[in-house]
């Protein structure tokens, strides 16, 4: 707490004092107290076994910025439909000598589907973990020096508040809160759910009926199971709690929103009749529009993840089979490496493409980032029924047919906290019914005690992905005198990470600018880049090995335009200059690889 006062003054001495204080505090803690992996002495205390509303999230972010002014900054990138600020929290080492926009950056968002709460807490956890570990963890220190993180913990704040404060099911609102006439009767949002029993939850309605084909499960009578043919039933289901508010014979058919913010993005966008949930055109909703505009202004974003629930899946694009052609081998290899490592990091999570693993999505966020902007992106479907008993359940993940696991888990580990007991109710349209069922925060959102565990594993996957964004270095700068007052300078530029500066799709479509590699302070006569490495890069069975060959760039030969610096690869550039320089000064300006400058002396290098 006293440290906050020090932070008000930003002098170098104070900063040094501070880091000293942190080290001292750390030393005070006996080594045996600290559980490994947990940040030592976190400046910001957050309980990670609960969910936060808009105000609570803002408070956490503001405390992070206050405690770590050199690592965190908070900005609003636009307004939601109801006028809430859409926050982006930037986490990077701001004293590294480079602004965040000159570093490869990683975008993380959460909660695009408002009922999928944990995306927000898990994004906040990742930001918290990075800031609180920076002082003590060498890997995190280097990561934040080289890269920037942009966290948007909720990109659907209006409906998040609705989910938290108003009666909802586990599946609603999902949408944003833009008023829309869903049933086309000219009235807007006139038939929402009704919290008939006033408990803040929308659960189920059931009615005793001799014609019903359901009965109470003798193992756990809270659960209804189908009766066998020939067996007498006991109950019929009447859907979610509600009334026919507009007298059209339908219940709960025109609720707030009911479009899908994740069908409002500009890749293979399709209208509602093809892709349910689409609105007028890409970015016709204010939240995706604000994000799009911000992402367009931040071409340094090279990797991204969007936190959803559920199913335990790392999804890459494409959303639709016809876009498979845009994912060629080189790009898929990158995704495979990342996704397969993720499978190891979070047990039971699976990696795959959206349309093959989940279902077809047109106009989804992942495709726009990946193809529309050339950013390697995953959608993390957090929480899986595997986590009930750490084993694969018998029931289908997404369509829970008679699956006793959620009931068993609730009974054995939550002691009934996830369930609203069935209670009788007099329904104006249905007569005598009973209302009860699982609470909205169950089945999709993590139970509290698993939230931190899974949050950490997921954050580690995000960090792993982010660390694989390009790391560009200038290596091996050599010169050779050509005679007649000309000298040839050859430089090798490497990328020591898996993600290239341009995806293969990006190279083909020129989505982003090329990498500019400039020899500064020299009189350049000709500029060339290697078009073919020694041996032709052909490996086995290719044409006979050849020597390196080079291609000339006639316009602005000092500033070479390089289509891509491949992952775990290099490019080689050559300049023919006047005179015989003793120094070199090279700048690599790559949108997704950052700005890297290096200089040296030829004589010394020898």
């Amino acid at each position, binding site marked *: 707490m006293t440290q906050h006062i020090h932070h008000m003054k930003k002098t170098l001495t104070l900063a040094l004092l501070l880091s000293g204080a942190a080290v001292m505090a750390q030393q005070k803690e006996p080594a045996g107290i600290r559980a490994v992996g947990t940040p030592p002495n976190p400046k910001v205390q957050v309980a990670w076994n609960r969910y936060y509303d808009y105000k609570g999230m803002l408070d956490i972010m503001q405390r992070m910025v206050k405690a770590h002014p050199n690592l965190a900054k908070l900005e609003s990138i636009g307004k939601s439909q109801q006028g809430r600020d859409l926050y982006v929290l930037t986490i990077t080492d701001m004293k590294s000598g480079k602004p965040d926009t000159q570093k490869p950056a990683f975008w993380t968002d959460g909660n695009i589907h408002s009922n999928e709460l944990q995306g927000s807490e898990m994004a906040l956890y990742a930001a918290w973990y990075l800031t609180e570990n920076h002082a003590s963890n060498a890997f995190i220190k280097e990561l934040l020096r080289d890269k920037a993180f942009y966290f948007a913990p909720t990109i659907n704040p209006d409906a998040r508040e609705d989910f938290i404060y108003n009666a909802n099911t586990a599946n609603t609102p999902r949408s944003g809160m833009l008023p829309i006439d869903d049933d*086309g*009767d000219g009235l807007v949002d006139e038939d929402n759910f009704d919290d008939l029993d006033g408990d803040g939850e929308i659960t189920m309605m059931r009615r005793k009926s001799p014609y019903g084909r359901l009965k109470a499960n003798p193992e756990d009578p809270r659960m209804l199971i189908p009766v066998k043919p020939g067996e007498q039933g006991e109950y019929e289901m009447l859907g979610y709690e509600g009334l026919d508010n507009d007298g059209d014979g339908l219940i709960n058919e025109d609720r707030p929103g009911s479009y899908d913010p994740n069908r409002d993005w500009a890749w293979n966008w399709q*209208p509602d*009749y093809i892709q349910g949930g689409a609105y007028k*055109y*890409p970015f016709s909703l204010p939240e995706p529009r604000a994000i799009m505009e911000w992402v367009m202004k931040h071409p340094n974003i090279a990797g991204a993840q969007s936190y959803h629930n559920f199913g335990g899946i790392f999804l890459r694009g494409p959303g639709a089979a016809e876009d498979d052609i845009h994912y060629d081998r080189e790009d898929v290899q990158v995704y495979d490496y990342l996704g397969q490592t993720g499978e190891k990091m979070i047990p039971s999570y699976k990696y795959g493409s959206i349309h093959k693993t989940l279902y077809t999505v047109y106009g989804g966020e992942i495709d726009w980032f990946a193809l529309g902007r050339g950013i390697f992106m995953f959608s993390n479907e957090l929480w899986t029924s595997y986590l009930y008993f750490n084993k694969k359940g018998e029931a289908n993940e997404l369509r829970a047919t008679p699956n006793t696991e959620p009931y068993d888990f609730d009974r054995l580990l939550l002691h009934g906290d996830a369930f609203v007991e069935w209670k009788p109710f007099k329904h104006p349209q249905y007569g005598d019914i009973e209302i009860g069922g699982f609470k909205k925060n169950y089945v999709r959102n993590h139970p509290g005690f698993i939230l931190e565990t899974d949050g950490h594993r997921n954050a580690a996957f995000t960090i792993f992905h982010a660390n694989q964004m390009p790391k560009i270095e200038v290596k091996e700068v050599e010169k050779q005198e050509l005679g007649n007052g000309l000298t040839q300078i050859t430089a090798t530029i490497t990328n020591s990470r898996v993600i290239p500066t341009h995806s293969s799709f990006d190279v083909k479509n020129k989505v982003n600018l090329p990498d500019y590699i400039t020899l500064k302070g020299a009189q350049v006569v000709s500029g060339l880049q290697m078009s073919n490495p020694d041996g032709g890069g052909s490996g086995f069975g290719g044409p006979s090995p050849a020597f390196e060959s080079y291609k000339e760039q006639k*316009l602005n030969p000092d500033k070479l335009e390089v289509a891509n610096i491949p992952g775990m690869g290099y490019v080689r550039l050559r300049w023919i200059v006047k005179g015989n320089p003793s120094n070199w000064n090279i700048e690599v300006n790559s949108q997704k690889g950052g700005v890297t400058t290096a200089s040296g002396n030829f004589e010394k290098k020898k």
Partner: protein
Amino acid sequence: MRKRFISTLGLALMLGGRLWAQSAYPDQSALTKRLQQINAQHKNLTSLQSIGKTSTGKDLWVLSVGQGDARKKPAVVIIANVEGWHLAGTELSLQTAEKLLAQASTDSVSKLLASKTFYFIPSLNPDAAAQFFAKLKYERSGNARITDDDRDGRTNEDGPDDLNGDGFITQIRIEDPEGNYRLSKGDSRVLVKADPSKGEQGRYLVYTEGIDNDKDGEFNEDGEGGIQLNKNFTFDYEPFKPGAGDYPVSEPENRALIDWLYENKNVYALITFGMSNNLTEPNKFDPAKANQRIIKGWQAKDIAINEYVSKLYTGTGLTDAPTLAPGKGDLPTWAYYHFGKFSFSTPGWWMPKDTTKAATRPATMPASRPGAMPGRGTAPAASEEEVTILKWAATNNIPAFVEWKEIKHPDFPNQKVEVGGMLPFVKWNPPVAMLTPVADKHASFLLSFAKAMPEIEIVHVKTENLSGGLNRITVDVHNKGLMPTHSEIGNRVKYEDRLKVIATPAKNQKIISGRTHQLVRTAIAGNGVEQMTWLVSGTGNFEIEASAGPTGSAKVNVTLK
């Protein structure tokens, strides 16, 4: 202003004082003035509204024509100059509006103006259109956004250059052994692509007039402008293609239009003056395309309507427009496939067929699209078609050609380079006088179209007293128009404003069977009927109203005793 006047005058003199002096197409300020005048003259029949602004602040005007509250009546939207260089569309739409208003006092027209709304949007792309009035004239489709058309990291770095200083971008030809163009046999001024399979040898390289400013081997591939609106709508959109932008509906112009259309629930159909044509050549039914998941063909019932509307159109004498296939990401296809409305398009004016007869354009190929010019380094459509355009221009005394004249060209220092070729705008933008008779025909087409639009009435109102105060009420909701209440594709579209039938019982009445609110999800065909029935107990007035934006409304009151 003064500068422009001088240069235009100079040009007019040079070109024999015809095309530019005569054309008198309205620029944005003249267009605004004219719309304001129309609006002032017909206050009780029109209203003028700006639905948005371009990035340079030019208004996007909508002129509403009709009596009473425009939004409460079924409407047809007439949109022009999405292309930017199609000034004839702008002028035609204005004249059509003027003709409608001129006939406003006649019985039949006044009846239509009372029951329908006509929305005229004469120029959706005024920033591109401005190039027609600029010092340097060329056919421009791109709006004022600064774009990197060739995606090389530099913006607007290689636009066309007026090498002969005549104020027009035409072409350059270079005598070159690698040339792939030859002289036309029909008109030796015209260059035609040599066909090696016919043993033809090329002698010329042909490019649009300019210099390879950025030395990338392509000519004039990244000039001023912009996003081409007709490549920037969502249907069949192709990202990253020159002029298409990075994502669809990225521009203030098309965003404003779509938002406005979604707000105006009364819109029934769109008619576009532009470079596609389903009015003289209706769409053909393709079951595979019409039934695939991503629908890319008109639905069967909509084809029938297209054929009918086409008959209305050609019936006015507007026949033989050239085949013009829709473009990827264009407005008319968006309006049908994504907005779900009937969408018709026509160039409005075209060269008469007898002078184009000699054209060798294959029937299945779309005509050359001059909007693509200045092109991607290759020459604009130079074909035998130019020969016929020049013949027609000569017959009508319209300057159309700049004679080839040798110049010095920095990219071809040791070769013979000449500037010359077809003038821009000639093919699709005739002298304004030629548009007057065509506008008459479009006005009468619009009237016959409006007459055929759906109209709802409630007929065959029947009350049967069953027993014990229980009545059965039966009505027919009848579409007395010739066209359906909405398109067949509209059956699928979520945001279509469908026919709603609302029954309002008196206080002491109770509906035993039937609903107070009913939605007719599927379109009612022309002269089609949807029967509705209620079982009602209790006496008094039982009101039934059927309404939808695109069809209007009807109401009946039944008294139960």
